[in-house]
């Protein structure tokens, strides 16, 4: 005989799960009791939302699904923002929640919440376990659904009596067989042919790289296609880092906060090849106008993204790695010299904004980001939060062979610290740098406890301007300088706070000092918080 709780742990072991992020409670205790006997590492977070973010950072850095665990009721509802964040960025997560006794479901007993119902819009799929014997099938399906097709979070809600009840034996299914779930992987040969013909005819083509390229592990295929076609490349925020930013024909990030020259190239193109990009409103503000000017080839694994935000003239549904692989083999370089010269001229005309002023008493964030990317490892992982810090990082940090992780879709403040902890646990030998503002940092500050407990060698840059800088900027620009609720008056002394946790920290008030301290920070093998004092009026762009 074997209990449901033991089955759950065995399922995770069968899936090769090495680490799980969670927070226990009464309704998930039987499961934890078997986790106690397992070799799976458990990371105790300080609040459940961060368990989901840490699992997300881990998943993005490792390429494996992240696992997070919470108890019923408030434990489960605290997960929601983390699940929604992962859903918007298509990150594979397995979220396990405890639930009250199945016989008490619906009676509003202590710590009961309908979490499968609440998470319906943010999960790729969810299960409420009604029979312990279903657990192996459910886990197999959950991992299959989370990691295939367009990835996403899957929730498994397990009533406590399902964890304690026993079944006669355990065998883990070899594969999941779901009648209504057969993600298409090969692009349609005819559509690929049409696309190649359109590429051959185009005079001013542009490739737009989205987060789907990263998710599909299609970096090599993408770069090979860009190289063999000679077509200039722009990227969305989620597509940053696929093409090394110092590549000749890489033009930068598009969109509202993007690089002017990248937007210029998109605006003048006669053919746009969208690769795993969903054309969100922050990336393309007037998609229909753009689709009238240019022919659109849209490659995505999710058929529902085709034509959702922008008309696609040549849609290709399939795994972008396979599609771009066949593109790279068949495409020839037919791009006109004039077009290349023109986009390179735009690129040359683009002058990065922000210069250090060592007498101001502040660190100039944009030039400091550029300095950081010069001093960091080629394969460093940069995790940014949401707000001005995100745009400073996205526009100025030069990602080479590394990664740029951020909450692009939902824009969740407080994402960076937990996600960076997850990323560092996945890649302990790579430099991981977390960039926060003082607003977003304080949303996840409690995770410093997790950082200490797990002895994570994470480097944190905290841009302190005592403001919610991006909202303040909006209030200045659109609301007649009526600043409300954007000043953080109650900020602690962050260095003392770090010291209270036993974490090394220092303050920089100029770029020279910040660069010197950053060097020292990267030289240590322990966690470090570098607080940079930033002018409250420092612009985002």
């Amino acid at each position, binding site marked *: 005989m074997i209990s449901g709780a033991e089955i759950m742990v065995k399922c995770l072991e069968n899936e090769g799960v090495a680490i799980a992020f969670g927070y226990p409670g009464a309704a998930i205790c039987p499961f934890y009791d078997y986790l106690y006997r397992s070799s799976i590492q458990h990371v105790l977070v300080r609040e459940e939302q961060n368990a989901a973010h840490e699992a997300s950072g881990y998943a993005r850095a490792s390429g494996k699904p992240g696992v997070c665990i919470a108890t019923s009721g408030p434990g489960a509802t605290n997960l929601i923002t983390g699940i929604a964040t992962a859903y918007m960025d298509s990150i594979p997560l397995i979220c396990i929640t405890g639930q009250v006794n199945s016989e008490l479901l619906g009676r509003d007993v202590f710590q009961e919440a309908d979490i499968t119902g609440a998470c319906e819009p943010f999960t790729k799929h969810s299960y409420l376990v009604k029979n312990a014997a279903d657990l192996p099938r459910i886990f197999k399906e959950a991992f299959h659904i989370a990691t295939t097709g367009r990835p996403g979070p899957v929730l498994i809600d397990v009533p406590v009596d399902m964890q304690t009840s026993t079944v006669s034996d355990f065998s883990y299914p070899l594969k999941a067989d779901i009648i*209504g779930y057969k993600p298409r992987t090969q692009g349609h040969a005819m559509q690929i042919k049409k696309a190649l013909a359109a590429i051959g005819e185009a005079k001013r083509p542009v490739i737009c790289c989205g987060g789907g390229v990263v998710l599909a592990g299609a970096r090599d295929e993408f770069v090979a296609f860009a190289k063999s076609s000679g077509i200039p490349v722009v990227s969305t925020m989620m597509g940053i880092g696929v093409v090394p930013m110092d590549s000749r024909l890489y033009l930068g990030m598009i969109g509202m906060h993007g690089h002017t020259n990248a937007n210029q190239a998109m605006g003048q193109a006669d053919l746009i090849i969208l690769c795993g990009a969903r054309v969100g409103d922050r990336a393309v503000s007037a998609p229909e106008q753009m689709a009238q000017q240019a022919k659109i080839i849209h490659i995505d694994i999710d058929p*529902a993204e*085709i034509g959702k935000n922008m008309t696609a003239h040549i849609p290709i549904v399939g795994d972008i790695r396979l599609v771009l692989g066949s593109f790279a083999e068949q495409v020839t370089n037919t791009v006109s010299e004039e077009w290349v010269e023109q986009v390179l001229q735009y690129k040359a005309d683009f002058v990065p904004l922000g210069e250090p002023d060592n007498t101001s008493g502040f660190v100039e964030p944009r030039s400091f980001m550029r300095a950081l990317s010069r001093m960091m490892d080629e394969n460093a992982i940069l995790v940014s939060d949401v707000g001005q810090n995100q745009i400073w990082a996205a526009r100025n940090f030069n990602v080479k062979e590394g990664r740029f992780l951020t909450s692009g879709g939902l824009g969740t403040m407080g994402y960076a610290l937990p996600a960076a902890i997850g990323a560092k646990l996945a890649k302990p030998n790579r430099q991981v740098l977390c960039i926060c503002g003082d607003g977003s940092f304080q949303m996840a500050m409690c995770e410093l406890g997790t950082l200490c407990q797990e002895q994570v060698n994470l480097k944190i840059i905290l841009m302190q301007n005592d403001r919610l800088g991006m909202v303040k900027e909006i209030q200045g620009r659109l609301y007649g300088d009526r600043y409300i609720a954007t000043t953080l008056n109650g900020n602690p002394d962050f260095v003392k706070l770090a010291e209270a946790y036993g974490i090394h920290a220092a303050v920089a008030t100029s770029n020279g000092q910040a660069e010197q301290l950053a060097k020292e920070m990267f030289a240590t093998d322990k966690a470090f918080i570098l607080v940079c004092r930033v002018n409250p009026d420092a612009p985002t762009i």
Partner: protein
Amino acid sequence: MKYTLSVLVENQPGVLSKVSGLFSRRGFNIDSLAVGITEDPTISRITIVVNGDEYMVEQVEKQLNKLIPVIKVKVMQPGLFISCELSLVKVNCNTKQHAEIMKIAELMQAKIVDVATTSLTLQFCDNDERTQTLISLLKPFGFKEIVRAGTLAIEKGAVTARKQST
């Protein structure tokens, strides 16, 4: 314009809320929805009538296909399917009006299923247009209640929802 969708789903708890929830959270309005099991007891069929445009119905179809328990979505082509809806109509009347209502019922091929001194209940099964006709004919008498089951649809000929042709 009205579109009729046939959705084959795995017959398991929670599927209906997944399907109907998708409509409301994407801002699409459901005109009618009918659900029941099919020739295969593990599969249910949901027939949904929505009011919208081509973009909306394409999005609905694609988003429905993303739901894991959804096996197949088919947008019915105008003129190529049969539809009908069961309605129960309880009409106000006195005994003197019985004959008049029974005449309408006979004309429309509705069945009188309950008779009382102050009401008559008609059972009617036909397409939306004929249902509207019956309702407008009975309107002068006044209604106590109207209950409609939602439209069911099936394609003409040997075509099925699962396959183009058999």
